[in-house]
């Protein structure tokens, strides 16, 4: 009986740990959703009457047990109107329905009541008013509209000059372009190598396999070092000297850029792709190859015509893993060309449309930058969370599409695996 109980105890400990993991997973998800979406939700405008007679108008940006931080109208520049108010000092707190919130194109926010707001706008805001709202007066539907507009602006516009406001379109585009470019580079190479390893047994094959395995788990930052040292300073500088000498000393390929970043990431993800594809090929029953050979196919015809198609789920698994790894790798990018604010998009309407030498923005780097290096920390953290959420969405969408595709294929080939 005591045995049974000990057994149960062990089982329950494992189950409890699994529960903890589930809780962790859910908690993380909720936190991301909440913190990532909160910045777009229209906050109420609050009027505080203090015991000392002052009246403050603005948004609450954080609250602690005994105090809160209020953002008032930013008159001169962004981030100049925070004030901490002790709860004890507050006499009255209201949400005046006529309160007006203005969002300026340079990122500043202004608050006023009634006409006062318009005056404020005229006097203090030569900059364009992006949006004027009365958050306290709006109903839930209107608030949802505001929320959606703010979110859309975040996804669909460029950041403003201060980088504290505006959208993240360049970063989004940069991330997606980078990942796609990386995939285009890595997949053919990875597949070719996997096929080579599958067909050959000799010394060369053994050394290739050894190299791939050895570098499979090397940290991304090391790849970044290589990218910077070899691609940027080595090859890039070389290209500049030979082909873009007229522009020197302004570097073209000699500084970090999209191409080098994609190459670095491709190298980073190569082992993953090779291992996954080769395992896929190896898992295909030998009977398939024998069957093709017995019909008069050559070894190559068997591999390319049958085995590789049958290994498509594994190829996609390789792609999924590569994308996941690449989309999340920020550290190497910091060495090979990611910037906080890029003057131009890597992908635009001017020939040749894709500009591999340009520096680019990346959601992951924006997260890092907004969280740690923002000029306005109180704006920075929510903005970092919004970026993070966007990044996660990008990763999940890229992954999910590949996973769905793979599952469809797997269904088709499942009978092969028994």
């Amino acid at each position, binding site marked *: 009986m005591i045995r049974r109980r000990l057994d149960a105890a062990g089982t329950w400990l494992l189950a409890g740990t699994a529960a903890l993991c589930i809780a962790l997973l859910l908690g993380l998800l909720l936190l991301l959703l909440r913190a990532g979406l909160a910045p777009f939700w229209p906050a109420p405008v609050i009027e505080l009457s203090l015991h000392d007679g002052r009246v403050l108008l603005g948004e609450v940006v954080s609250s602690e047990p005994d105090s809160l931080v209020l953002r008032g109208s930013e008159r001169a520049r962004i981030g100049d109107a925070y004030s901490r108010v002790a709860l004890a000092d507050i006499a009255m707190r209201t949400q005046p329905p006529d309160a007006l919130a203005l969002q300026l194109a340079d990122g500043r926010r202004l608050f006023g009541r009634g006409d006062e707001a318009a005056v404020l706008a005229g006097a203090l805001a030569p900059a364009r008013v992006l949006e004027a709202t009365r958050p306290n007066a709006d109903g839930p539907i209107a608030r949802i509209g505001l929320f959606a507009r703010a979110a859309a602006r975040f996804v669909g516009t460029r950041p403003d000059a201060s980088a504290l406001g505006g959208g993240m379109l360049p970063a989004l585009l940069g991330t997606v372009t980078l990942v796609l470019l990386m995939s285009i580079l890595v997949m053919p190479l990875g597949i070719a190598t996997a096929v080579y390893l599958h067909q050959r047994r000799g010394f060369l094959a053994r050394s290739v396999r050894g190299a791939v395995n050895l570098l499979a*788990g090397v*940290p991304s*930052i090391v790849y970044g*070092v290589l990218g910077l*040292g070899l691609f940027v300073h080595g090859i890039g500088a070389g290209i500049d000297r030979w082909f873009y000498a007229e522009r020197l000393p302004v570097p073209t390929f000699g500084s970090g850029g999209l191409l080098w970043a994609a190459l670095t990431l491709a190298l980073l993800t190569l082992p993953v792709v090779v291992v996954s594809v080769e395992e896929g090929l190896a898992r295909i029953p030998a009977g398939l190859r024998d069957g093709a050979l017995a019909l008069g196919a050559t070894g190559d015809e068997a591999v390319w015509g049958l085995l590789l198609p049958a290994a498509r789920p594994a190829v996609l698994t390789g792609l999924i893993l590569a994308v996941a790894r690449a989309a*999340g790798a920020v*550290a190497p990018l910091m060495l090979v060309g990611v910037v906080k604010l890029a003057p131009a998009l890597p992908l635009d309407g001017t020939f040749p449309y894709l500009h591999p030498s340009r520096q680019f923005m990346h959601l992951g780097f924006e997260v890092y930058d907004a969280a740690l290096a923002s000029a306005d920390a109180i704006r920075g953290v929510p903005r970092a969370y919004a970026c993070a959420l966007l990044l996660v969405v990008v*990763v999940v969408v890229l992954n999910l599409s590949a996973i769905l595709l793979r599952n469809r294929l797997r269904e088709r080939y499942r009978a092969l695996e028994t």
Partner: protein
Amino acid sequence: MPVNPVTCDALLSPDLAGAHARARRRRERVRRALVGGGTALVMAGLLAIPLFLLAGLLPWQGLPDDAWQRLGVLAAGSLRAAAFAALVAVPLGLATALFTAHFCAPRLRGWLKPSLEMLEALPTVVLGLVATATLAPWLKTEVATLLALLVALPAVLLALAFAFGARVRRAGWLPLWLLPLPVALVAIGLALGARSGTVAIAPANPWNALVVGLALGVAALPLVYSVAEDALFLVPREQAQAAFALGATRWQALTTVVLPAAGSGLVAAVLLGVSRCLGETMVVLMASGNTPIAGVDPLTGLRAISAELALVLPDTAPASTTWRSLLLAALALLAVTALLNRLAEAVRARLRRRLQGLPA
């Protein structure tokens, strides 16, 4: 079906048959060239990494005197972060893997495993953000709560198990039943902490090894989990069945049959997890405070090799002494992680060989 003694090739006109054969040979040559070329490129790229690092370092005497010492401090930081992370990732990952591989209802496993593996795709910068912006401020006041939770959770679990465990025959869905437990305990802990109002344990630095360990642990958790789970699941079901048929409980089947078979897979999982933590950049960069403090105190900050590289290298002139000492650090990182991976790979290969010999 009329048997046609004529061959297929000859069914085409003779020159067509010849053309077909020629086209076949041509395609063959093209494919060979592509595969060979691709592999050569890959090999070149992969070899470039160690070669480049070594080449950049070659005149050894150019290293500054304090390079080794600096490297020591950084390495200590990396190790400390990895150690705390392993303390989180290894127990959580292995236990969850054991559960899903051996006890879990297939339907629950069907979504739990992919979900945890999706966590692997979560960019580490996001974890870094959570660590620095949410976890670190919270831990400033709640280290004690965390410790209490660490003790309370298993205690309550064991108590529950002794009370009801024998009555629950199948544990397949147990995690979902137990899900409220950690949530409730966290809530209780928070409430108690808020009521007492005092800070029992205050960290020296809000960005410290504990924060890094927790976040990094979560980052490494999916890797540890999925490697371990794969190893466990590779053990043929028939093995466990045979144990059941001899009267073993599930727990006994796990400990006496499945674990011995898949044990080395678990070791590999731990090795890979540690290697991952050693090289992880963004979390340490964002949550460690980047202060070069040696020592083992979990509540002080640290600076890791990877963070140093990310912070300093972009603005360093190539071939300068700083550059070279950074290359040295990168090489050290490469060597250690490659070694760990090699080890893990060897262990896994042995496991696979053994399980392949295993009758299924």
